[in-house]
């Protein structure tokens, strides 16, 4: 275990640039490497990584390893797993960081299986224990209703994924020095068993739920699809999106793509108006990031009032029309 050294970031390239998540990981990775007294490295994969090595150095990397191959142009699970695994078997990183992204979510568990390390996903905090020098990785469990800290005493590498915008980006400093080192091993195309045959961009009408600044969400209390549809008017007036609880989706009042919660979307709007929903554990897991939560519910004991900033105890059917009319007036004026 003692031959595992340093922090390695699995870098991502987006539109020919270092992806923002990679610059964020360089910030937290630099701190971890300094606390370990070891080096910070980045592994960059792509058809071409020209110039990006120096970029990563400016953002804090000591070493940048670049693997260039046409087959690495776009993410492919088999190709990337092969490249990263064979690199790690030689480089023996002690800590490995990934974005909690399309790539990181697919690649890191697979690599963990191949390398026999320890992986904590979606970490909210990462630190090095000063006494043991082990990585302590804190992550949400039970849909964000609890946080667990994981430590691996002997399995290496110690791996973690971090969601975008969880940690501040590294500061750029062009005077930093570092090495850009090509990865010599060539990719074996015969090991690529899974082939990407199509990529489809999702067509979104109106505001995308995950990006919306205002979300109007409804649950069981709405009663039926016709009533549920009334949330749309308010959402449209506020330029927001409609969200739903699992029950509302299961009942067919809203499409599954609008589900907010543990098994649906995680949203963090400025304003979240929860209408006729009680606030089950799985649902609030999806909306706790909202700056302001408003609850409208008949039941004053409903859990949603425990997480809301403003509440009206009452029948939503009597409250919503006035609220919608008033917002319409405010927006117009």
């Amino acid at each position: 275990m003692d031959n595992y050294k340093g922090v390695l970031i699995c870098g991502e390239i987006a539109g020919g640039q270092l992806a923002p998540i990679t610059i964020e990981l360089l910030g937290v990775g630099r701190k971890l490497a300094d606390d370990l007294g070891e080096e910070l490295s980045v592994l960059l994969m792509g058809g071409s990584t020209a110039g990006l090595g120096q970029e990563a150095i400016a953002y804090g990397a000591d070493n940048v390893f670049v693997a260039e191959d046409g087959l690495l142009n776009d993410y492919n699970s088999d190709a990337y797993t092969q490249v990263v695994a064979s690199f790690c078997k030689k480089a023996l990183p002690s800590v490995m960081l990934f974005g909690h992204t399309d790539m990181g979510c697919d690649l890191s568990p697979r690599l963990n299986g191949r390398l026999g390390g320890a992986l904590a996903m979606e970490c909210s905090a990462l630190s090095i224990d000063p006494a043991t020098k082990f990585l302590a990785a804190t992550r949400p469990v039970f849909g964000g209703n609890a946080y667990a800290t994981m430590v691996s005493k002997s399995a290496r590498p110690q791996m973690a994924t971090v969601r975008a915008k969880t940690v501040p980006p590294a500061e750029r400093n062009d005077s930093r020095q570092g090495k850009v080192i090509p990865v010599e091993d060539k990719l074996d195309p015969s090991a690529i068993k899974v082939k990407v045959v199509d990529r489809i961009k999702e067509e979104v009408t109106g505001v995308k739920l995950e990006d919306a600044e205002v979300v109007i969400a409804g649950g069981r209390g709405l009663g039926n699809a016709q009533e549920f549809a009334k949330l749309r008017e308010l959402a449209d007036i506020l330029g927001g999106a409609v969200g739903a609880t699992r029950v509302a989706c299961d009942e067919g009042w809203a499409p599954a793509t609008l589900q907010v919660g543990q098994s649906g979307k995680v949203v963090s709007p400025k304003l979240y108006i929860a209408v006729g929903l009680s606030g089950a554990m799985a649902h609030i897991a999806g909306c706790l990031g909202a700056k302001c939560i408003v609850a409208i519910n008949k039941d004053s004991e409903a859990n949603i009032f425990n997480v809301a900033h403003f509440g009206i105890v009452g029948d939503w059917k009597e409250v919503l029309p006035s609220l919608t009319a008033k917002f319409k007036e405010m927006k117009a004026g």
Partner: protein
Amino acid sequence: MNIIVCVKQVLDPEIPPAKFKIDPETKQVVPPPGVPPVISVYDERALEAACRLKDKNKGKITAISIGSEKAADVIKHAIAMGADDGFVLSDPAFEDQDSFGTAYVLSKAVQKIGAHDLILCGRQAADWGAGQVGSILAEMLGIPVVTLACDIEATEASVKVKRIVSDGFEVVEAPMPSLVTVSSEIGLPRLPAGMRLMMARKKVVPVWKADDIGAEASYLGKTNAHAEVTGLTVPMRKTECEIISGSPGDAALALASKLANLI
């Protein structure tokens, strides 16, 4: 085609958070009394995916679950939905395992079940949600893995999987046998009904212990886990909710003006 589906029994995530209690000493969740555990939501979607494939292509679905002997309930649920067979993997040696221990036990069960074209898992569990058992299992079995499926089509010797990515979808093709992890976007699970429900209730679900699947002790249990939980906390949420009183109309107007700077 033969499909194996891995399912887990979990604490019902639809409970109010007030019922969610942890024991900071043992770093375990204390199950609320009177709340029956349920099948993990993503695993139920994996079963649904398996049932849809069986509807189209014929074949056999086998469900497996690691847990206490109570996990027979999720196997019965699987059978009620459309699975043909199922096994519970239960042994004190399996307790408090991490993803590696879990994947190892599943791999031994898969080997005992024998011929299969496809293994389906939920994308992650609804409780600890480590999100890696499927991928580690595939690596242990040496088969391809496709994660986050929202649609699966089977052809002669391969599967075509539509998978979720941040800006849409990706369609990938994998040879059989492969492992696919299923996301909730695949759609609602069917409601078990009628004869299937009756049949499932009567089904005696065999329990396999470590010896039955040839699982070696050196891979099992808490002592062989790759990581340990050193802390478990419930975050303090100090939200003061300002209840706006008055008639519904008045309260709505007052609320709207309080939110003026947010819209």
